[in-house]
Structures are given as C-alpha cells and as structure tokens.
C-alpha cells in the first residue's frame, strides 16, 4: 500500500495544478483581507472629507412639522427654514437648494423626507445621514436639558456595550470563543471537500481513462488500492490545509487589528475543550472518508472523470445543504429539518460538525450521528471497492448500481 500512497502523493505534489488549487484559497483570503482593510480606510477618509465639504458648501433647507428639531443646531449648520414643504421641494427642483429636509409631525413613526440634487448611488447617502443626525442630536439636546444624569445622554449618544457571561450546568461557558476550535474543523471539512472533490473522482476515473485498472487489479487487491488512494487523498488534503493555514495564522498573529480580529482575541484565549475537539476530529475524518469513498466509487463507475463529474454537483449540494439551515442549527437544533440533517448520511457530517461547534449537540445525539456517519463511510468504502473491482474494466461504459450489487 505504501507504494500506492508514495506514487499517488508524489505525482500530485509534482503537479502545478495541485499547488494552484492549494494556494488559490489562501490568495483569495489574503486579497479579501487587503481589500477590506484598504476599503474601510478609504471609506472612512472619504466620509470625513465628504462631510466636511458638505457642511461648508451645500445649501440646505428644512421644514419641521414636528417641532423637535433644534433651532440652534440648524443655525450652527447654516440650514435655512423654508416656508413650507412644497416651497422646499420647489427650491431643490429649481436648483436654489442642494437639499431639503422635511420632518413630519410624528417622526417616531413616519419617515423623514429628503429631497436633494442627484449625487449618484451611494451606500451612505450624505443627506440622509445628516437629516437623521439632526433630529437625533436635537432629541438628545432636549433630553440632556431635562435630565441631571449624564449617563442617560451617553446611552442615547452611543449604543451601550454588553459583556455576556453564560453558564451551562452551572459552569461558566466561553460563548462564541468556544466555537472557534471545533469551528476550524467545519472550515477545514468544507475547504477540503471543495478543493479535493474533483481529485477524488479522477483518482479512479483516471485509472479507467489510462486503461491501467486491469494491470493494477492483477497486482493488488481492489480494497488495498482503494485504501491507498483514500489515504493519499487525506495526506494531500492535510498538505493543502497546511498550505492555507500556516500563512494565514502568521498573518492573523502578526496583524490582528488590520485583519479585524476582535480585541483581546489571541491564540491563548481560544478555549480548547477536548470532548468537542475529539468529536470534531471524528466527524471530520469519518465525514471526509464517506465523501472521498463515494466520489472515488463514482469515478470508477463512469467511463471518464468528465462524465463522473456530472454527479459531483449532487454530492457537493448534499454535503453543504446544512449551511442553508444554519440559523435552525444554531437557534433551533431540535426542529425536524435539523434532526433529519443530523441523521441523513450525506448531510450528517457538516450538520454534526456545525452542531458540535455551536454546542447544540447532546452526547447521545453526537454519538448517534457519528454512528450514522461511520456506518455510511464503511458502506461507501465497500461501494468504492466494488465499483473499482467491477467497474474499472468497463471501458467506455457506465456501470449501473444494480450490476455492482449483483
């Protein structure tokens, strides 16, 4: 078997396409980090510049039916009062005003209306923000005039920060931090599945395309060959994970603020719960074994990797289907859909990994799901061996499931 592993691993490592596939997610992640960092910086600068230019140059009018807008604030910002809503709108249309704000008599329930010269599409239209802030600041001024408690004003000016402490069975839990370590297995599973899916198929379809199956099967048992291929794919997956994880870890540790890591989060602060990590590792390994075997089997059934790849979509959709029910998995883990996903072989690995990460799994459920995945994985390995044994010599023809079961 070592001969197979050696051959399969090294021939993949020698291929440019393997390294392109391995490095591309890392490059994408780094590019996204970079874009986000520079976008935030640039957006902040632009907003500040825009606000400054806006207050200095724009001609703005307002009409206040609510009586809540502070006259001092209006005067400070050089905003002039219009005689009526209609007059304000007409002034904008004629070009006499750059913008006109109309405050209805019940701004708590009705919208503030802004009429302005078109300045193109923006995620943060400056006039909208200005109109809303004017009313908010007026309300805060009113409250601060009435109250003697400065905390009230501060609460209104800035959303209060929350520090949550949660308990499970009377013991303090770490909240979101506790999901990081088992959550890494979710990301690793997802990444490896996407990166290696086509490789899984071509590992056996390639033997068929190269017409090597007959020579292999007279020299080695099908199950040894398939085991060798599965182990090779695991090893290549670990190489790919390391290729992505190591540089990413260096970036995260070297530039925590720049990549948006929450303050105070360091490697040492990530809690490591052995049970959750052991379960995550088991779900990860058995889940991958299930999908690798399934796709290796598909590869052996079809005449070429291209034809087998048509079924790749079904496997990928089945594997990632639980992501679409993420909200239920986190908040309502005992709904029917989550239960079905937990015990249905193709959706079980990712559902189990997610539930294990967010802590919505009882030990009994986790063991039940693990049992389903392990049994399914063994069936998939059996299927892969049989598909290769009986399908790999059927050159140019697809072997049916019925034929394999005979």
């Amino acid at each position, binding site marked *: 078997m070592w001969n197979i592993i050696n051959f399969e691993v090294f021939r993949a490592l020698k291929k440019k396409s393997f390294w392109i596939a391995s490095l591309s997610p890392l490059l994408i992640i780094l590019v996204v980090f970079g874009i986000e960092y520079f976008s935030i910086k640039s957006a902040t600068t632009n907003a500040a510049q825009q606000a400054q230019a806006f207050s200095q140059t724009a001609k703005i009018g307002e009409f206040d039916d609510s009586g809540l807008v502070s006259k001092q604030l209006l005067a400070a910002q050089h905003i002039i009062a219009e005689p009526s809503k209609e007059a304000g709108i007409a002034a904008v249309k004629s070009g006499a005003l750059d913008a006109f704000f109309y405050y209805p008599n019940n701004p708590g329930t009705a919208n503030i209306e802004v009429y302005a010269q078109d300045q193109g599409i923006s995620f943060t239209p400056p006039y909208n923000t200005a109109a809303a802030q004017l009313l908010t600041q007026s309300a805060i001024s009113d409250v601060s005039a009435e109250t003697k408690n400065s905390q009230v004003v501060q609460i209104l000016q800035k959303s209060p920060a929350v520090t949550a402490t949660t308990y499970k069975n009377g013991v303090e839990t770490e909240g979101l931090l506790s999901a990081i370590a088992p959550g890494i297995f979710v990301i690793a599973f997802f990444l490896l599945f996407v990166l290696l899916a086509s490789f899984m198929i071509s590992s056996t379809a390639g033997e068929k395309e190269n017409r090597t199956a*007959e020579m292999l*099967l007279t020299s080695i048992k099908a199950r040894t060959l398939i085991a060798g291929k599965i182990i090779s794919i695991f090893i290549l997956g670990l190489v790919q994970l390391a290729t992505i994880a190591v540089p990413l870890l260096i970036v995260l540790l070297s530039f925590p603020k720049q990549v948006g890591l929450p303050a105070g989060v360091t490697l040492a602060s990530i809690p490591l719960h052995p049970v959750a990590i052991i379960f995550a590792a088991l779900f990860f390994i058995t889940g991958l074994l299930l999908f690798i075997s399934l796709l290796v089997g598909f590869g052996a059934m079809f005449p070429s990797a291209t034809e087998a790849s048509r079924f790749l979509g079904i496997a990928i959709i089945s594997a990632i289907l639980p992501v679409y029910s993420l909200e239920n998995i986190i908040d309502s883990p005992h709904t029917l859909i989550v239960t079905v996903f937990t015990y249905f072989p193709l959706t079980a690995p990712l559902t189990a990994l997610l539930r294990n990460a967010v802590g919505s799994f009882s030990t009994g459920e986790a063991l039940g799901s693990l049992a389903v995945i392990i049994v399914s994985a063994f069936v998939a390995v059996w299927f892969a061996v049989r598909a290769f044994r009986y399908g790999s010599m059927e050159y140019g023809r697809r072997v049916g499931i019925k034929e394999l079961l005979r």
Partner: protein
Amino acid sequence: MLTQSSVPVVDIQSFAMRFGPKEVVKDLSFTVNQGEVFGLLGSNGAGKTTTIRTLLSLLEPTSGTLLVNGKRYTPAMAPMVGYLPEERGLYRNEPVLDTMVYFAVMHGLGRNDAKKRVLAYLERVGLGDKAHERLIGLSNGQQQKIQLGVTILHEPSLMILDEPTEALDPVNRDLLMNIINEQRTNGATVILVTHRMEEVEQLCDRIVLLKDGARALYGTIDEVKNKFGTTVIALAYGGALPLNEKLYGVTKQLPHYAELAWHEGVTPDEILRFLAVAPDLHLTTFDVRRPTLNEIFLTLYK
C-alpha cells in the same frame, strides 16, 4: 524462479461464463504445462479475453475451475505473472521511470532493484535518455516498449500476453518475439492470446482454439493439423493448369497458384509425372503440404 512440478501451470476445467442471457464461454477445459508456449486462439468475441480475465480473477466464473499452479489466482501471485492486457495503458502524464518503478514494485521488486532494472531495460531498448520524460511525450512505438517492459521487468515465470502484437510496429514486434523466446529459454511459460496464426505457428507448442466460446481444437500444432487438415498439393506455375478428373480435383485456383486434392489410390508422384509433361504448363513449385493454421482457422470459421 521456476519450480519443477507435475501440476500444470494453468489448469482450466469445465469453465463457463455467462453475462446475463449471453453465454460467452461454454464448458472450456485445457491445461498449460510448465515451460511451453501455449496459444489461446479464436476470432474476436470467441471468449479468449474473458477466459484470461477469469483466470486472473478479474472476473468470477459462472461455473468451472481456473487454477494457476494449482490455486485460484490472487494478487499475491503477481510476482510470478507478467500480464499484458488487451487494453493497454500507462500513466501518460507521469515520467517513464516513476511509472515503471511503480508497477515493478507492485510486482514484488524492491524500489532500488526496480529502478536498476528499469534503467537497464530502457538502455536495452534504446530509451535510456527517456527515463525522466513523461510518457505522453513518447512516440507510440516507444510507449509500446515501456508497456512490454512493465510486463517482463520482474522476470515472471508465467507470461500472459493478450494480443501482444496488436498495433505493434515491426521493430517492437521483433522485440517482443525476442523477449518471448528469451523467457521461454529461461524456462518461463507463455500464454499467447491471439488471432494471428503465423505467430502461433512460429512460437506455440500447443494451442486451444475457441469458436463461439467453446473449444473447437486442442493439442500440439501437429496434432491439430493431423486431426483437422487434409494434406494438399500446392502448385506455383505459369501457363495453363490441365484438369484430370481421374487423378485430382482443384480445391483452390489463382492465376499462378493452385491447390490440388488427390483422389483415393492416387499418389502425389503420379500427379507430378502427369504435370511435368503437360503442354503449356511451366511448374515452378510442387509442394505436398499440410494446411496452415490460418487455413484451418478460416475453414473452421466459415
């Protein structure tokens, strides 16, 4: 490498194979003895490849026994078998050396030994400079040499060659013939699966000929010819061939070649004397011979 034994190297008894409703091989029995070159013959679809695949446990027989050295074949016996399948294939995108070493190790050689043998083989067949090139970059003829190398590198005591000369160029065909002879000299047993009768006549000690999945002929070349064929007189001539209903009948006639079957009680000498004095006939060859395997094959399949 070989062990002297009374057990046939290959022993097939009452073998039948059915794919769905179609019976591909029917009640086939034959043995192959140690050190002989054995021909497994038949037209396309006669059941030759199915027989070999079942012998090598790639297929399960519907009934019957197929044994190699007295046992059902398992991959553990790979070091003693060199199999050149009908469907040829190698890893076309991999370097020659890696591919050959991979298969050699799979056939029981150590990695270092395999590497040495591969390099020696490549030198022998004139591909010493191609060891690190990818197979896809090699010509068809060069790839065929690599395929042959993979089959014989581990010096198998039983070689099973399924249509070995199919699509081979003359250079590689000659190389293969030399290799078969070499292996035979070294005591190896060779099973040649083919429908090329001239190769069979040159190489094989015994044959089995399949027709529609059943055994139609079995034995040494001589036995088969004696049993099946009738001796004929082959003539090469110029001019006009005279007819003589008392002496012979013409079984085949071409512009300058004819085959005659003599009647009972007549000897070839009498016919030669008659033809020697025949006007307008210039005889260049008068050969009393048995039919070729090719002729027997054609007759059988008519």
